[in-house]
Structure formats: structure tokens, C-alpha cells
């Protein structure tokens, strides 16, 4: 059963329509990879689902309820967490404070500081360090950990490998694989197509705000996605 359904969603940046009539659904425990060129609308789509960007049309249904009009904080309380592009940690606060501020609403969920440190061992020695002083890979791990501390039912990951060294990306993805193995529901924006196809159950390729390709990751070839990526014919899944 779908935990998230997006129906004919539109989103704009002023005069520019960044998302055009996108419809997709995500089942519980599924990992959906969103791919596409820069400016295809991936980040806007994630931000609109999370409530950080206002939808100009369409509907977002989460866990059976229409959340299109809800502000971001109420969506987060329902179980949607976004790890934004660029990490955007609270740089002046310690890593521990970043985690506690996200997790302290007394929800009593499964994600605790101890479990975070187990899942992201690179953070163990850095809990008391200022978040702004961490390396890129550590910051990305902390950003994912902060989102997990809200005990989400749907995790939206925007460009988690952007700007990281290959070693740091491997470290972040090693932690993510553990997360996905545990049954998390994830929508992932990823520029690295090969990595996206390896980790996801399904893949959606956006082109100029529209879905140009959608299919099971296992049966999808790199060439099919690349044709959709560049808007070439014969890409439909």
C-alpha cells in the first residue's frame, strides 16, 4: 500500500513552473530514486512534498490524509523528514544538539542517540564538536541522523553525495544501506545514476518538471534512463 501519493502536482518558482503535473506513489519500505538533469525539478518536488515549498496545484496524500495545505512542521510531525541539499546543519550548535533538537519532542520513537551512533559510527567521536567544523561526509551523516531523530516514516534525501569525496560518499551510503535493509521508506535524489539504480527499488526520471521515465530499478538499464534524462525518444518505461 502506498504511504505517499503525489497527484498531478505543480510547483512554481515565480513565473517558472518547476514541477508539472507529477503523479507518483511510494509504497511502505520502498526506495524510490529520483534522477534527472540539473533544473529538472527533483529538489523542488522533494521540497514540495516536505512542505518547504508551496504546491501551486495537485494533491499530496500521506498515510491516507491530504497534507497539501499543511505547513512543513506538521508534515514532519506526521512522519515526513527531508535531508536538504547542502546539509544545512545548525552550524553553530554541536552535533549532539543538532540531533537532540530534532528528537526531543518526547515522541519516544525508535531513533535515539545511541542508535544513531551505532548507525553512523563516524559521528561517535564528534557529538560534542560544532557541526560547522565537521568534514563534508560527517556533516552529511549528521544531517541524515538529524532527520532520523524525528522518527520519520518517509525519508526524503536530496543529493546526499553532492560535494563529497568518493570515500565520504561510500561511508554515507554504507550507513544508508543499513537503513534501507531495516525497512525504511526513502525517496532519494541522486546524480550518480549507477549508484541510484543499485540502491533503489524503483527509479523516476524527471525532465523539465515532468516524469520522463518510471520503472523498476532492477529492470532499468542505464541507457533507458539516459535517454529520458536528455529527452530522447523511446525512453518510456
Amino acid at each position, binding site marked *: 500500500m502506498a504511504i505517499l501519493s503525489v497527484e498531478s502536482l505543480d510547483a512554481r518558482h515565480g513565473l517558472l513552473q518547476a514541477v508539472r503535473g507529477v503523479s507518483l506513489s511510494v509504497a511502505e519500505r520502498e526506495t524510490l530514486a529520483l534522477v534527472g538533469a540539473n533544473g529538472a525539478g527533483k529538489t523542488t518536488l522533494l521540497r514540495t512534498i516536505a512542505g518547504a515549498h508551496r504546491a501551486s496545484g495537485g494533491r499530496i496524500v500521506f498515510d491516507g490524509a491530504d497534507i497539501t495545505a499543511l505547513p512543513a*512542521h506538521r508534515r*514532519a510531525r506526521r512522519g515526513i523528514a*527531508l535531508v536538504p541539499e547542502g546539509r*544545512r546543519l545548525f552550524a*553553530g*550548535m554541536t552535533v549532539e*544538539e543538532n540531533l537532540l*533538537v530534532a528528537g526531543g519532542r518526547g515522541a519516544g520513537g525508535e531513533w535515539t542517540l545511541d542508535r544513531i551512533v551505532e548507525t553512523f559510527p563516524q559521528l561517535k567521536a564528534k557529538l560534542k564538536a560544532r557541526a560547522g567544523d565537521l568534514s563534508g561526509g560527517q556533516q552529511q551523516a549528521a544531517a541524515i541522523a538529524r*532527520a532520523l531523530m524525528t522518527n520519520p516514516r518517509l525519508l526524503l534525501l536530496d543529493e546526499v553525495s553532492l560535494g563529497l569525496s568518493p570515500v565520504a560518499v561510500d561511508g554515507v551510503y554504507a550507513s544508508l544501506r543499513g537503513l534501507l535493509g531495516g525497512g525504511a521508506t526513502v525517496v532519494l535524489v541522486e546524480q550518480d545514476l549507477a549508484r541510484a539504480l543499485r540502491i533503489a527499488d524503483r527509479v523516476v526520471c524527471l525532465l523539465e518538471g515532468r516524469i520522463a521515465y518510471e520503472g523498476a530499478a532492477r529492470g532499468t538499464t542505464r541507457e533507458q534512463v539516459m535517454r529520458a534524462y536528455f529527452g530522447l525518444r523511446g525512453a518510456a518505461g
Partner: protein
Amino acid sequence: MILLNQILQGVFLGAYYALIACGLSFLFGVMRIVNLAHGSLAVLAAFLMFGLSDRLGLSPWLALLAAVPVMALVGWLLQLLVLERSLRGGALVPLLSTFGLAIVLDNLLFEGFGADTRSLSPYIGDLSFASWALTNDISVGQLDVLGLAAAVVLLGGLQMLLARTRLGRVIRATAEDPEIVGLIGIDARAVYALATAIAMALVAIAGAFLAMRATFTPYSGGAQLIFAFETVVIGGFGSLWGTLAGGIVLGVAQNLGAYVSPNMFLISGHVVFLAVLVARVWLGEVSWRRLRARVA
């Protein structure tokens, strides 16, 4: 010995400035807003307490207890009705709207209370003039000591709140990135409203000390704003202990100026303020780039 006394009295005066400034500093630290109605709101609180004491016969301390929640409510409304809407127009609009609010408040108080000078000092008995003699030449006023203690407790309490509590973490996180706090389930609007309410509760306490240690009129807010602003700039915008230090530097500078010549009381404080501001810009602690980024 006279010089030492001037410095000591300057410290107490500085503590009063820190009391006046801490709400301004706190609000700037959380919301990046310079509230130009700050002084007028302190005078509003002073008139509220004066009215409760003079017309209803309440003790000034009970009037203060009543004024704190009333001013907190004023702060909450100020955020929802003025600051939140102003912020949508960019960082400069709150400057204009709070400047306008100050004019409206000053003139409403003038309409309501007239131009007479008022003070709460007749209502606090001996405290307004009682002092402890430290030596034959140096005495400290009990109200001044109370003001210093209040400044330390309030600024220390705020610091503890921000550093040690979940609410403090939430306020600091919201100050850094209000959009991201929304994405982790925190209502940034509510945090801003709470922060403004806390700032106005602090303004009520500042207004009480203004009313008890001096006289005030409906138009006293401008001078209070200037002293508060200078205190915060000297101490560093958004830094709470810096606010106490800034107040003391300003108070001591004014008293040392008065030691040289009574006419130099105000100007010496302004000179120190300007010197600190220029030094900060030149030394790069507040670079123009950062200033521009804040305004953008």
C-alpha cells in the same frame, strides 16, 4: 577615591543599561531584528506599572509581577501583527515598522498621560535612596545593587536557558535556520512569538528599573533605545554576556566623562560607542560583507 567611586557608579549604571538592552539583544540574536520600538515599549511598561501603583495603589513589585505577563502578551501580539508581516518584506521593513510603532506608542502615551514627568521612586520607600557605605567616600545605592543583581540573574538565566534547555536549543536552531526547524517538526512562527514574548517580559523588568531609578515621560523611549543600542553594539549584537560588558563599558565611560566635565557625560559614551563600532568594522569582526549578507 573619587575616580574609583565614579567607576563603581558607572558599573551600576552599566548594569541598568544591560537590563534595558538585554531584550533588544535577545530579539536580535533570535530574529535578526533591531526593534526600534524597544525604548518606547520599556516606557509603556513603566507607565503600566506607574498606573497600577498610582491609580490602583498596588505595590510596584506587584505591579511588576502583573506587567511581566502583560508585556509578554504585547510581545506575542507584536510578533504576530507587526514583525512577522514586516519580515516578509525583507530585513529593512521591520526597522521601518518598529520605528513607526515607536512613534505611535509615544504619542498614545502622551495622549493618555500627558507630558508630566513620572517616577515610581516615591512608591518604593527608602529603596530609592538607601545605600551601603563601603568607605567614608564610597557608597553604593541599594537599588543600584538590586539592578546589578537583576542584570546578572536575567542575563545568566537567559544564557542558561539558551545553552542548557531544549527550549534554548530550539530557539538557537530557529535563529540559525527557521526553514530547517520546520522540517524537523518545530513551528518557527511559534518560536518567534515566544522569543518576542520573552524579550518583552525582559522589557517589563527594564521598564520597572527605569521607573524606579529615574523619571520618565511618554517621550523617554528614544533615549532608552539609544543607550540600549549602544550597549548592544559595544557588547556585540546577540551576545548576552557581551550585553552586560557593553553596558558596563558605556556606563563607566559616561561617568568618567562626567568626572572630567559634567557636560561630557553623554558625549563620552557616544564616543566610546563610535570607537567600538569603527574598530569592529576595521578589524573585520563585523565585516561589511557580513553586514550586507544580513541586510540581503
